[in-house]
């Protein structure tokens, strides 16, 4: 249970640091590769997706601004983001993301209520993979259109303001329901707020019935995945030692089949993987699955670990 406990502690510490940290002087900057929503007043850091789309530091910056000190600042933010992604890669999703913690709470609640998890057909599951790429394209293209093709300024921060469920839901943790209101300023703001509230409602239900439901659509997951090859974080499988029990697939919150089905390549860090290590903990093969940082092994599966975990669960139940 050691890894699970460690992950839970890390997740909750980071949730409080990123949601309330600003009230205590904690600021992690604007380049975080996780859904630390800047719409939460007093947050401890901001998701990079907002900076990426914004007009100060992102794609919406005009060409003349890019040539100024602001352009250098935007490059510095991008540089910090890339550095953070390379350093921790998918650990941001499974161990740090505050919105991920909220999803895990809903899953915990569902389990306590003894409600079965909803399941997708594999075909649907595979089709959903493209959605996060479409969302990434949406959040990259619209700011460019505003900056260089005369798009209406009310379309700014298109992902944050119309799609991201963290914007209306995360401020609820600081008692702010303002982001669930509809904005009747004009047609664009009304459309954006209707979309935002509707998607937030749908996602809330989805996150309750399906573990890590939003992560299926998360464009940040794709951005992080782009840097996997230059990251020192490795998720490896000793394909010769695998007995094909399928525990890894059963325990995966994202229903990833690739780890179970991989027979040749030892690198099994797939696009949807959150590095939660549930699969590694459940694998009964000694050192079949392992998480590495450079040459150091952080954690590896073992028969004894699974046995101890099983015994501990038996005692608890």
């Amino acid at each position: 249970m050691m890894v699970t406990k460690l992950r839970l502690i890390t997740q909750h510490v980071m949730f409080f640091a990123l949601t309330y940290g600003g009230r205590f002087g904690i600021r992690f900057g604007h380049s975080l590769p996780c859904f630390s929503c800047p719409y939460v007043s007093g947050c401890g850091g901001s998701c990079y997706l907002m900076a990426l789309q914004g007009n100060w530091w992102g794609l919406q910056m005009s060409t003349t601004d890019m040539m100024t000190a602001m352009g250098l600042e935007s490059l510095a933010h991008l540089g910090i983001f890339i550095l953070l992604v390379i350093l921790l890669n998918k650990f941001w999703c499974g161990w740090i993301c505050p919105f991920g913690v909220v999803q895990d709470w809903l899953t915990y609640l569902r389990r306590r209520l003894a409600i079965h998890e909803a399941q997708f057909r594999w075909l649907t599951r595979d089709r959903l993979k493209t959605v996060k790429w479409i969302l990434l394209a949406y959040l990259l293209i619209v700011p460019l259109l505003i900056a260089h093709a005369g798009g209406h300024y009310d379309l700014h921060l298109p992902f944050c303001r119309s799609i991201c469920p963290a914007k209306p839901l995360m401020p609820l943790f600081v008692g702010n329901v303002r982001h669930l209101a509809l904005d009747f300023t004009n047609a664009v703001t009304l459309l954006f707020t209707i979309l935002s509230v509707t998607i937030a409602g749908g996602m809330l239900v989805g996150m309750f019935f399906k573990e890590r439901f939003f992560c299926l659509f998360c464009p940040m997951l794709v951005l992080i995945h782009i840097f996997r090859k230059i990251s020192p974080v490795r998720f490896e499988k000793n394909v010769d030692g695998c007995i094909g029990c399928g525990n890894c697939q059963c325990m995966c919150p994202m229903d990833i089949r690739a780890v179970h089905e991989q027979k040749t390549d030892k690198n099994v860090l797939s696009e949807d993987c959150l590095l939660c290590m549930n699969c590694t903990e459940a694998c009964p093969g000694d050192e079949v699955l392992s998480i590495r940082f450079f040459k150091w092994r952080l954690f590896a599966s073992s028969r004894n670990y699974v046995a101890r975990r099983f015994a501990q669960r038996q005692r608890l139940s």
Partner: protein
Amino acid sequence: MICRNLTWAALFGIGIFASAYGLVFRTAVAGTECPAYIWIDCGERIREKNGSLTQRYHIRSSGDTLPDCTHGSDFQAFYRFFRRSSSSKKPYRFDRAFPKAGYFQAVITRDNGELCLDINSRTDTRIELYVFGTCGRKKLLAHISHYLFGKASHSDETRTRGPVMQLPADLPRLCLHPSCRNYYMQTGQTYRFNYSGKDATAKTMSILENHKHLADVARSPSGIFEYTPPHDPQLDRAGPHAFKETVALVETTTSGWDYATTYTLLLNRSYLGHLRSLPGLILFGVTILTFVVGVGCKRRPGRK
């Protein structure tokens, strides 16, 4: 007879001369006719290469005659900055580089016949700008205060500064009461003005937009003018960075001088005024209900 004719001729000549003189005099007076008031108009903003911001201001008048009328008049501009320390969340305060009671003089130039001035700001700054001058028996004063968002760590801002000056003591001023609302001025919010001048008993303040008289605001017993700009559908459609200029004007007459004092409000659209929580919460609830029913009907039983 001759004498009578000469008299009539002389009178006729004097009449013609007087008419001609009157015409010329009236034309001359029209050429130097003073505007009823002047106001400051925010013009183009230029982002400099070092990240600092240069704001251009135009000095506009009630008529189109300001360039002609300024012949013989002395228009001057003064400004000062309030800056917020980057390390704190404290409110804006006097920039350390500026004397507490003084102003720097800005250079007024002519561009295509218009009076204008440029002010450069390197960081996040609130600027307070006054333009005043006399025209005939009229004293004209215009005031604006707003934020400039420079993004440079250094600039040649100091090079453009003139000497430290004091505003003339007898100038009547129309000042906006300090408020957190002044940071992002919006339609639908109430703004309070204080008029301090020789004739501090001015009864009304006029509100103007594009030279059109919008409203008259009566002075409250406490000596304050309160004005709530209404929402503007055109501004609402234009985007969050669009703004309009609304001018507050007070006119008084004291000691044989006419005073016209204006304050330019840069109004953005309302940020929160159009938010409706109830429809949003209803939509949120209905969506959740719909999805719960949908998932309940469609989902396949699976693991816990």
